[in-house]
């Protein structure tokens, strides 16, 4: 038998023996970015179609969480940077060849837009404030009490009220922008990884769609988790089922692609087909995070009494683990020479 022994004198920290340039920060960001993108896509899509009455949670409450998710995700990205004080260099240039560059610009647009949308929803979500509450008193520099019975507060300064009226008039444009940028954000997280041909496991164009669909699925699960409207929960659990179906198809599609590709991609797929990621992927992501919640949702739609929150939590966990597995597995896959 012909054998080969390779001895390398290189032992750079973070690179050898297995590349570890990206850790939990990137996985957390990819998960939160996908979740936020999914929530904004639903909000934009149903607002454009005038479904404000049907989907109160998806349109009004869930988007209040989006700026929080995006900011936590961005903080995770910032923690990951090693030359932190130079982060502003991202915004002195646009490199269309670099997914990370246009991702940074996308985030610069979508984060303020999501904050604007959340603030516009404040009056609908919190029409009544108890002004004796001491936490509300801290807000007294921006809001003031009014005599109105339905909404008992208003912005303190005229320019704030004018700005709100102006933005409310332009809401349709805002919703289109949120929908389009939501789709870009959802796909970009996958394209970011698929642009690295040096990591065979990431180097598949399926990843962009997989991350978008997984983001939509986790966003539907999040809406199910916080919604109290049974019709809305039912509708989003149907959407979620469709997304799970597409996600399963994309996963099979991805592995078929790997197995029909070159040696390095076959090796990459083998990490999941008997290798070190087999259990965590097929057991925790595919079974626990996709098949089991899908089964629970189908049974609930058929009339069995099952708490929908259980399926929702499993999907969120599955989406979270999926990002971890892909970030770590990609760095373990490589060219052998």
């Amino acid at each position, binding site marked *: 038998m012909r054998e080969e*022994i*390779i001895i390398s004198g290189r032992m*750079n920290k*973070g*690179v050898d023996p297995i590349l570890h340039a990206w850790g939990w920060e990137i996985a957390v960001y990819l998960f939160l970015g996908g979740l936020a993108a999914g929530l904004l896509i639903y909000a934009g899509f149903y607002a454009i179609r005038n479904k404000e009455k049907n989907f109160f949670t998806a349109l009004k409450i869930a988007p209040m969480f989006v700026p929080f998710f995006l900011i936590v995700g961005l903080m995770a990205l910032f923690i990951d940077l090693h030359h*932190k004080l130079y982060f502003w260099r*991202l915004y002195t240039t646009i490199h269309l060849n670099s997914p*990370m560059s246009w991702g940074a610009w996308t985030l610069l647009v979508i984060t303020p837009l999501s904050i604007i949308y959340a603030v516009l929803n404040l009056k609908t979500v919190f029409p009544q404030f108890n002004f004796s509450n001491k936490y509300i008193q801290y807000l007294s520099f921006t809001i003031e009490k009014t005599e109105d019975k339905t909404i008992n507060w208003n912005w303190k300064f005229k320019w704030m009220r004018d700005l709100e009226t102006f933005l409310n008039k332009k809401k349709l444009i805002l919703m289109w922008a949120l929908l389009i940028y939501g789709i870009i954000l959802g796909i970009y997280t996958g394209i970011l990884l698929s*642009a*690295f041909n040096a990591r065979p496991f990431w180097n598949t164009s399926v990843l962009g769609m997989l991350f978008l669909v997984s983001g939509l699925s986790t966003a539907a699960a999040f809406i199910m988790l916080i919604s109290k409207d049974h019709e809305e929960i039912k509708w989003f659990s149907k959407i979620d089922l469709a997304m799970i179906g597409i996600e399963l198809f994309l996963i099979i599609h991805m592995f078929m692609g790997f197995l029909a590709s070159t040696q390095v991609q076959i090796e990459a797929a083998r990490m999941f087909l008997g290798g070190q990621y087999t259990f965590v992927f097929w057991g925790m992501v595919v079974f626990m995070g996709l098949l089991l919640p899908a089964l629970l949702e189908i049974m609930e739609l058929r009339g069995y009494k099952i708490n929908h929150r259980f399926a929702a939590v499993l999907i969120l966990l599955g989406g979270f683990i999926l990002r971890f597995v892909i970030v770590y597995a990609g760095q373990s896959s490589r060219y052998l020479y």
Partner: protein
Amino acid sequence: MRYAMAIDTLKCVGCSDCVVACQTENNVPIGYCRDWVVEVTEGTYPQLALENRSERCCHCENAACVRCCPTGASHKEEGGIVVVTHEKCIGCAACIQSCPYDARYTHPDGYVDKCTFCLHRVNEGLKPACVSVCPTKCMYFGDLDNPESEISKVLKNRKWKLLIPEAGTDPKLYFLV
């Protein structure tokens, strides 16, 4: 101008003098290296073949690291030498992920670091530190566009191979075999 390097694997004894010269010349932090020696033993005992390779950044023509860099810190200098501008680098490690040769690392100071073909020496007309110290004279450095250069001649007359040409990066580090 297209700078390239060739290493004669038949002459290289794997002494790692190139590694030490680079670490000294470029103040590489302890525990890190910009170039390294790989020993490959192939065959079945007693028919064994040993190949020593002094490896480093390949200064690829189609450099994935330059393409992925979001700030333009990774760029090409004249002659196709790929370098990182420290003041532009945010340390995001996208270039580390994109390099099939794993030739880059994060410097303890935060920016990403790698072989520069000793650009500061090349600009003064000197050879890179690794080439100039090699005790077996197995390394060649020069301009591929100049047919009279040492490297053009040696690549014309000898058989050579590239590392992972299938990655499509068009590397400029040649190994004479």
